[in-house]
């Protein structure tokens, strides 16, 4: 017996309690089994409508959300809105008002601006799931990472997790920091100073600028994607210099615990933040497993936000 979530939206990991996180992960675990079996599709959301509203291109995340909703029996519409740099905000609020008139049950939103998903959630009646907003949060990524870790290690508390790379601009890093510290793991962030945001220690992490020191005896090595626009001299001098000091290769990985797992939210820049040999190491890399867990976690989120709720319009 689990109590239905009191949250209407999932805008971030910040604000979730340990029991709520555990409940989502337990729920997701059951969906892993369902997805692996022959009868992949359930009927929890039959008759419900889910819209994936993506203001940033992301085939992977969008497909994962789409599959999750369809496996719960929902009708799914995908909207990829190319945004002009002008008047983005007006487009956002107009779009929200328009969608709201269509009686949706859940809206998955990805947007390039921090806080944009929250702004949109204030303008609609349905549940809103943050599919990644700017450099702020990407809660389902953190949940799928946690599920992957928990299934491999059996627990989250007491583990030491190193998050490496472009922490400053990463919503994945922020959501993972919130989730892992909430669940009692020790979190380290490793990056050159140009990619470490000010005040990051206040989020309960230890910051390292020496990757070797930071990786010492860690249980999990979580790599972040380095955006191409940050590679050419603005934040780091060059790709080869970054890879030399902050790329994950066999030699640096040897400093972590022998059973340390390697994770990456994808898509990877091989030879920039991670060496192919390491990324494809079947013994250590759980990168493909993360993708599988993504669908299960998104099913759990949709489940918890819409189960035992009437349609949004009936509530009004």
């Amino acid at each position, binding site marked *: 017996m689990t109590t239905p979530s009191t949250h209407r939206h999932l805008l971030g990991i910040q604000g979730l309690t340990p029991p709520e996180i555990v409940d989502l992960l337990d729920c997701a675990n059951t969906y892993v089994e369902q997805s692996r079996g022959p009868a992949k599709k359930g009927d929890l959301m039959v008759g419900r409508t889910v819209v994936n509203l993506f203001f940033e291109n992301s085939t992977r995340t969008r497909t994962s959300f789409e599959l999750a909703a369809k496996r719960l029996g929902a009708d799914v519409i995908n909207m990829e809105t190319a945004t002009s740099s002008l008047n*983005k905000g007006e487009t*956002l609020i107009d779009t929200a008002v328009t969608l709201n008139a269509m009686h949706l049950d859940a809206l998955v939103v990805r947007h390039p601006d921090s*806080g944009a998903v929250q702004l949109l959630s204030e303008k609609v009646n349905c549940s809103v799931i943050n599919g990644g907003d700017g450099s702020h*949060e990407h809660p389902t990524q953190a949940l799928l990472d946690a599920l992957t870790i928990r299934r491999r290690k059996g627990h989250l508390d007491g583990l030491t997790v190193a998050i490496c790379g472009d922490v400053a601009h990463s919503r994945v890093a922020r959501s993972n920091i919130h989730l892992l510290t909430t669940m009692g793991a020790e979190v380290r962030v490793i990056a050159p100073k140009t990619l470490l945001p*000010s005040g990051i220690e206040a*989020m309960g992490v230890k910051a390292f600028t020496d990757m070797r020191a930071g990786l010492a005896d860690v249980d999990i090595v979580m790599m972040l994607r380095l955006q191409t626009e940050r590679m050419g001299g603005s934040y780091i001098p060059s790709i080869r210099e970054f890879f030399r000091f902050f790329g994950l290769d066999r030699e640096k990985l040897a400093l972590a615990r022998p059973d340390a797992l390697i994770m990456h939210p994808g898509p990877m820049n091989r030879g920039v933040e991670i060496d192919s040999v390491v990324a494809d190491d079947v013994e250590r890399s759980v990168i493909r497993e993360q993708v599988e867990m993504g669908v299960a976690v998104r099913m759990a989120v949709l489940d918890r936000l819409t189960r035992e709720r009437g349609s949004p319009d009936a509530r009004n």
Partner: protein
Amino acid sequence: MAHQKPGRVAYVNARLLDPASGLDAHGGILTDGEMIVDLGPQLAGPGVLGDVGVEVIDCGGKCLAPGLIDIRVQLREPGEEHKETFASAAQAAVAGGVTGMVCLPNTDPVIDDEATLEFVARRARQLGLTKVYPYAAATKGLAGQEVAELGLLSEAGAVAFTDGVSAIANAQVMRRVLSYAATFDLLVVEHPEEPALAAGGLMNAGELSTRLGLAGIPAEAEVILVERDLRLAAMTGARLHFAHVSTEAALKVIRQAKAAGLPVTCDTAPPYFALNEGEVSDYRTFAKLSPPLRRESDRQAVIAALADGTIDVIASDHAPQDQDGKRRPFRHAEFGGIGLETLLPVTLQLVRDGHLTLLQGLDLMTRRPAELLGLPGGRLERKGPADLVLFDPEAPWKVTPESLNSKSKNSPFDGRLVQGRVLMTVIDGRRVYQSAA
């Protein structure tokens, strides 16, 4: 009626407050036409006048002070009349007890020639409300490249020179602006923010900006520009004024420069002593200001600098933005908040909290700004202009869009309860505003 010359009016039974003379006493003021002709405790009651033809106004024991002079207002006219006009700003000003305001040159067209300057002066005169004094651009087109015609603009009525909401980035250009301004003993007003360090920033840099995933503007951007400009001021001998100072670090170096005898002054705005960066937590775009709201320790430092005299003036930093400009994701929302109508009540909170005396608080909004820019008013004196504000320092009200006269409603104090209400505003002897209550 509005054009009829006002006769003799006695404002009696008031708490007279004049920071310039230190007067805080029960009394009254007698005006004749546009001028104050007498004031003092002897005019406390109507009986003493006994003169036919004098209109008597009973102030009910409330505070009667010189009208406020607000030295930092963005008018948006000409060019952006959908955000604010002379008329709407003047209505907001008189409702806020502001009888004189100094407007920034960042209009469209920019105030960098005599024609635009005279247009502003003429439009303001036609309204017959709050007196409007223009700053003119320090560099042509506010482009930060070439020195504007400071001498001619000064003759045409510009009270000081500034590039408005942006700093003069190039140190050599700033040096020439200061040096040329010193030739005519003109004041240069700087927006102290190192542009490259602030570029792309949306809020104060620190733990909160990291949590919110918003690009930060470091406090160092302010102090670095202040330090550069102090060096250039010392080098050129120019008079320099820093607008809306917001950080502890910048206030510290300004305090030192003043102690060393440099002719430097500064102001701040109510958000910087009443609010901190926490206001941004929910991506609240009404709290997106330039400079950004800072840490709590900076807010405390601003209060300390007001109390010890490091800060010379409180200005509203009135920056109207329409709904389209603020109803956006935080990154794309415009900077700025309106402030003409909250200047007095938010400052009075410093008095209630014991940081300033009532006379000190008023001084920062009356005599000091008038003296800084050489403007008439700002004090109660015989033969001075009858620019007055009557207010109840305790009367509570809630800041709501409906309570504000400004055309744009983007107040950083939106939804707050404040105390201090203007009951009447008098400009050149004419009662231009009376509260409905």
